[in-house]
């Protein structure tokens, strides 16, 4: 396996009608991969080159030639990297080998895969290609794998087949879930459409969110400055800020545009994106937590946002700057849409009805307003936040550890908090400011309850 692939018979590109058995051989990625990899960078370079060429009117072409040489070198490098990259699925393990000088061979045991996404960047979409992203448990994104690029149909098919292999045997009895078996039949199972975001509402919601508020402040400041100084030169100094704002808003809109959720045989299928289209499947039992977010202004319209936390690192490039953001199943939707989706995700929906005692007002006058928790034998729900109300549901079988915390003020007031930690650092449910006796009881009861839940559902 350490010998270069060029020494072997030519590797077939994946054909559309191959069965799982054929995956055992070595495959190459799609020949247009280098073009996609160079991707947006090349596109902007071409635009830049064209602009320079038009401006210079051919008076100094040596610069242009250097740029073209650099572009050619980049493409050649990409081509070599494509040539030495190959992948194989054998014995329940996906292997990706790459590298010309330093061979890099990575193995992904399919049973450990949390999710497989099909991602299409802008360039890939034009060429009809797609990228497979594998997510494994843990927060280290370097541990995830990428297969870029394959033809879109092949990527979708391969994703289905890998998922079929990755489902642990006892969990997929042939009679109980025949759809999970790979093959042509898997594509025929109809999806049940659950939600589709309305573009106009999404745009309005983003304008009315924090980015919109910041923009309004910036515009107000500019207006005041212009009114006071009477010169329009001041506007120029706000240009970078405005550009940053526009980019933020645009990035959010383009990544959430067209978000559609459908219930498929293997879980919830989430599809979103304007330019880069991402398709991912959220498998039942992989959901670590659900969060319902209701910002101040949205509440007036009855809008909310529903996010899920799935084990595994976030890899979507477009969202990297929004590290704290979770996957939004509903970027903006009505309360009833969110409730229907929550019912789809978790088997029972306890409401956060248990309010803290009134003396909490002394400790947390603002937080007190929405602070509440609730729970049943499987889920715990906690609500908090004043400006932005956040309600979090957590399945007890996913809880990693429990913490009881009592600060000095809480001790005075006879209060204590119980915090539930789940994998990652993005979601946590805090049962805050309960009477001390209740908190003690919770700490004694919840670990045992979680154990039972783990045995039953984990």
């Amino acid at each position, binding site marked *: 396996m350490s010998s270069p692939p060029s020494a072997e018979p030519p590797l077939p590109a994946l054909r559309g009608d191959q069965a799982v058995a054929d995956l055992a051989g070595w495959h190459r990625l799609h020949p247009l991969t280098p073009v996609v990899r160079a991707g947006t960078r090349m596109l902007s370079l071409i635009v830049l080159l064209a602009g320079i060429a038009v401006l210079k009117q051919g008076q100094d072409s040596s610069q242009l030639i250097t740029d073209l040489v650099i572009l050619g070198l980049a493409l050649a490098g990409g081509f070599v990297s494509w040539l030495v990259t190959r992948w194989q699925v054998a014995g329940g393990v996906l292997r990706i080998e790459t590298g010309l000088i330093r061979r890099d061979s990575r193995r992904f045991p399919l049973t450990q895969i*949390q999710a497989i996404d099909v991602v299409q960047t802008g360039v890939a979409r034009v060429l009809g290609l797609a990228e497979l992203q594998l997510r494994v*448990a*843990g*927060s280290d994104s370097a541990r995830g794998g990428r297969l870029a690029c394959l033809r879109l149909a092949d990527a979708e098919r391969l994703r289905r087949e890998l998922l079929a292999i990755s489902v642990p045997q006892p969990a997929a009895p042939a009679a109980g879930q025949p759809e999970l078996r790979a093959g042509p039949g898997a594509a025929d199972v109809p999806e049940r459409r659950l939600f589709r975001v309305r573009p106009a509402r999404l745009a309005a919601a983003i304008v009315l969110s924090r980015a919109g508020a910041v923009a309004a402040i910036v515009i107000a400041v500019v207006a005041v400055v212009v009114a006071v100084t009477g010169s329009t030169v001041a506007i120029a100094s706000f240009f970078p800020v405005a550009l940053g704002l526009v980019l933020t808003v645009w990035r959010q809109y383009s990544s959430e545009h067209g978000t559609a959720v459908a219930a498929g045989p293997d879980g919830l299928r989430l599809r979103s994106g304007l330019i880069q289209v991402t398709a991912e499947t959220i498998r039942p039992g*992989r959901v*670590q937590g659900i969060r319902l977010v209701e910002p101040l202004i949205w509440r007036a319209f009855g809008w909310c946002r529903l996010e899920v936390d799935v*084990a595994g690192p976030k890899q979507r490039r477009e969202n990297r700057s929004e590290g704290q953001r979770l996957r939004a199943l509903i970027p903006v939707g009505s309360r009833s849409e969110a409730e229907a989706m929550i019912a789809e995700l978790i088997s029972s929906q306890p409401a956060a009805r248990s309010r803290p005692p009134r003396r909490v007002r002394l400790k947390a006058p603002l937080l007190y307003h929405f602070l509440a928790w609730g729970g049943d034998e499987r889920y715990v729900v906690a609500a908090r936040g004043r400006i932005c109300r956040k309600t979090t549901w957590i399945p007890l079988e*996913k809880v*990693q*550890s*429990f*913490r*009881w*915390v*009592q*600060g*000095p003020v809480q*001790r005075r007031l006879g209060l204590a908090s119980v*915090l539930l*930690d*789940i*994998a*990652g*650092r993005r979601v*946590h449910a805090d049962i805050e400011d309960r009477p*001390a*006796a209740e908190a*003690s*009881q919770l*700490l*004694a009861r919840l*670990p*045992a309850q*979680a*154990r039972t839940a*783990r045995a039953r559902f*984990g």
Partner: protein
Amino acid sequence: MSVTQKGLLVGQPELAWQHPSPRLLRARRIQTALVAGPVALVGGICGATASAAVGGGVAAAVLVAGLAAERFLARRVAAWGFAERDEDLMVRRGVLVRRLSVIPYGRMQFIDVTAGPIERSLGLATLRMHTAAAASDARIPGLDQPMAAKLRDQLAVLGQAQAAGL
């Protein structure tokens, strides 16, 4: 003093709390001295550029602050405790902000034993338990090194026996 005495875990059998080695207090004192000493020295020299009185005052103030901190060390060290239950480990700590963590054995992903230079010279080690959650933060400082190794092996075996997926 201990959280259990204040009615935590009412109706539960009283837990057998174990505590770090008494030498942890000495380790903490050395650490405090190592911070306060040089800070007092540097502060004193800087102050002395203005006048000798200011320099002396700054140095004295830092030393007094160090001594005051020392008074709280004993309580903080005494607050550390852990209890092994059938299915999980409990760790408590803190005086001002009291914390008590419950970590199910099945959730432990790996266990570290570390020892800094001061701890090492006193034959102590810190045991750290890692779960998939970033916030878990369960550690027990100042264990005797043989005790730390024993506990680590014990927890690893328990973790393996009760391991649960994500």
